[in-house]
């Protein structure tokens, strides 16, 4: 096997001792290749090259030292150098047992007569680090791509599953850009076929004008009120639009919700205010039809009825939870049919899980839509009753204490004590009810003021109270 010194020395009149440094100066690695393509000698001058690995190529086919995809390049370079004396520069990757492939850029030079060649290589290690960074950046982009793809699919699914008809319309051309399945159902056309058509489509004449008004308002101010419109097939829809921007293009996001006949569509702002007040009200608020079937219920009513969601009450008879079955709600509805309003209607609400609440109802019939509806407000008066019955609870406890005396005290004495106790209780209740106004309390109790004063002294009640008003006689 020839060595570099011997082989390069044959190149001409150059001093062989200069050739080694010359090769080192122009390359990081130099390979002497014999006519069979086997590595006959190596000269490693690059600091970053693993010299031991490179020396391991000695005696092996040069192509075998490279990765599969580089082998053809080596064959091409050898052929080219044999044919033309000098090959094109090509990048060859050598697999490394210690890490990533070792990239080297070679040019092959024919040494003439006996078919030996020399491959002069430049280490691309530094470049490969940059390449690795670029590859990693690309992979990060690809991961983001796929993540975004999933997010888009999720929103696409949501868009298509929405029961509300949603259209995306180019605000400039009014061409439909996207439509969900609900739009297709509303207009009786596959949603895909709507894309590209100019909006508005298939509204009755009056609604068509209204659509254009809404879109003009949205274009000018970015928002508009919700309108009730009608398609050419007669379906009433609540129509709303807003403006969104994408890549410098303005798009209308149009929502259409079929609405039951008779349902009032209010403006967005009014509806929003009213809904939030109704929803936040502590009293139960229910809207029913004239048969007492629930159309709408607020959170307050759901709490009274021990229910989680409005869906559980919608369409159900109100008397399932309110009043005695077959009685109270029927009476209330009769009153409403006859008088239009009902006030202070006392009844009870039974919760789904056994709770009961005393309630007071106020109700009215509205006839603004095609079908009249009943609005009912129900206030839980349990606390009020509990406050009033505070004395009654005391009375009960006192009677119980008296009962425990049975056997130790004679019946006449027990009756007398009980009578006194009851009389005192009602006098105190009357004073509480009249805010300590003794004149009024006497009236409530149906006794003379003088008689009340006697009893007050007897029971030692209200002695410390100052006279409440000028009309209050001093005792």
């Amino acid at each position, binding site marked *: 096997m020839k060595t570099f010194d011997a082989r390069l020395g044959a190149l001409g009149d150059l001093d062989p001792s200069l050739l080694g440094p010359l090769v080192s100066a122009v390359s990081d690695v130099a390979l002497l290749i014999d006519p069979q393509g086997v590595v006959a000698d190596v000269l490693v001058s690059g600091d970053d090259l693993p010299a031991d690995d490179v020396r391991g190529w000695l005696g092996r086919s040069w192509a075998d030292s490279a*990765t*599969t*995809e580089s082998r053809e*390049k080596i064959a091409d370079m050898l052929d080219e150098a044999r044919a033309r004396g000098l090959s*094109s*520069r*090509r*990048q060859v990757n050598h*697999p490394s047992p210690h890490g990533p492939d070792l990239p080297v850029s070679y040019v092959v030079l024919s040494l003439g007569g006996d078919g030996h060649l020399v491959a002069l290589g430049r280490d691309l290690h530094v*470049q490969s680090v*940059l*390449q690795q960074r*670029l*590859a990693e950046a*690309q*992979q990060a*982009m*690809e*991961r983001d*791509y*796929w993540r*975004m*793809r999933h997010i*888009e*699919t999720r929103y*696409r*699914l949501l868009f*298509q*599953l929405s029961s509300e008809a949603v259209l995306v319309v180019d605000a400039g051309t009014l061409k439909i850009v996207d439509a969900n*399945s609900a739009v297709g159902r509303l207009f009786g056309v596959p*949603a*895909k076929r709507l894309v590209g058509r100019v909006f508005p489509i298939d509204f009755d004449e009056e609604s068509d004008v209204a659509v254009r008004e809404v879109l003009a308002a949205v274009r000018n101010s970015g928002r508009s009120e919700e309108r009730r419109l009608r398609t050419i097939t007669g379906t009433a829809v609540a129509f709303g639009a807003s403006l969104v921007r994408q890549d410098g293009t303005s798009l209308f996001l149009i929502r259409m919700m079929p609405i039951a006949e008779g349902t009032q569509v209010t403006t967005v702002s009014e509806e929003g205010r009213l809904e939030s007040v109704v929803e936040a009200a502590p009293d139960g608020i229910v809207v029913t039809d004239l048969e007492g079937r629930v159309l709408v219920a607020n959170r307050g009513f759901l709490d009274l009825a021990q229910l989680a969601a409005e869906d559980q009450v919608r369409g159900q008879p109100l008397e399932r939870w309110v009043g005695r079955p077959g009685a109270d709600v029927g009476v209330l509805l009769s009153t409403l049919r006859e008088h239009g309003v009902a006030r202070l209607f006392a009844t009870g609400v039974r919760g789904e899980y056994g709770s009961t609440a005393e309630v007071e109802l106020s109700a009215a019939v509205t006839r603004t839509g095609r079908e009249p509806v009943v609005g009912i407000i129900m206030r839980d008066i349990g606390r009020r009753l509990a406050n009033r019955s505070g004395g009654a609870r005391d009375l009960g406890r006192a009677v119980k204490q008296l009962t425990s005396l049975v056997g130790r005290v004679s019946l006449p004495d027990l009756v007398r004590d009980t009578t006194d106790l009851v009389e005192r209780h009602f006098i105190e209740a009357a004073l509480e009810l009249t805010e300590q106004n003794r004149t009024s309390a006497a009236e409530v109790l149906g006794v003379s003021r003088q008689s009340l004063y006697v009893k007050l002294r007897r029971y030692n009640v209200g002695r410390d109270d100052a006279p409440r008003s000028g009309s209050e006689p001093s005792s």
Partner: protein
Amino acid sequence: MGSPRTIHTQAGGSPRGGSASRDPLRRVPGQGHPPAFLPSEVQRLVALLLKPSDRPCEEMVAELAGAGVPFESLVVDLLAPATREIGHAWTEDRVSFFEAGIAYGRVQQILRRLSQADEPADVLIPPRGRLLLTVAEGESHTLGLLALAEILLRQHWDVVLGRPILEATPATLVSSEAYDAVLFSAAQTRSEASLKREIAEVRRRSSNRTIRILLGGQLGKLEPQAWQRIGADAVGDEAIGVSELLAGLLPSASADHGG
């Protein structure tokens, strides 16, 4: 992106649906002709992808998409051969790694825009089956997998991209969820040994005992019998043909599912 058109299966015969042969004539948009672009059109895109600006290549593809060329045709017959050509140019040192890298990034960007513009409306159709697409251990090419995933999604497959998008190994993924098939994409012959080991592991740990394994990518072209040696059920890397191949391998996944 992509490689041999030939598709082989362990089950024998060609996949249902028949020929993958192509008419080299220019495809007429909207007439259902076999999609194809003239080589000169592919070369034009390659030249545009290597230009300093992003815009010319994007405009060329956008113009074709606007003229009604279907998503699959743009991906399989234009972007894929253009990307392959850039790969060859890099392999032959006609372009640098960085030029090729930038061109790949542009292809990815174009693919993304096409995907967004051609989002299938029929997302409610139940998937034909769940597929895991992954590259061989130690490999990192993703663009071809993304393109294949986009095509399979449009053919109503539920597609999960494994390595290098996810760090979990294919065996881990198939043990935690039921997959109908795993497609391993490999570009290098030296991946054969690791593929053989991983495929055995996938079969052993899969929660679906009848999971099918496909080999895709350049390896199948370089080593036509490699798919049998590594224990795959089939080989094929023609993106459009993969769905048919899967339908042939998976009895429950009807080829005409969902249209």
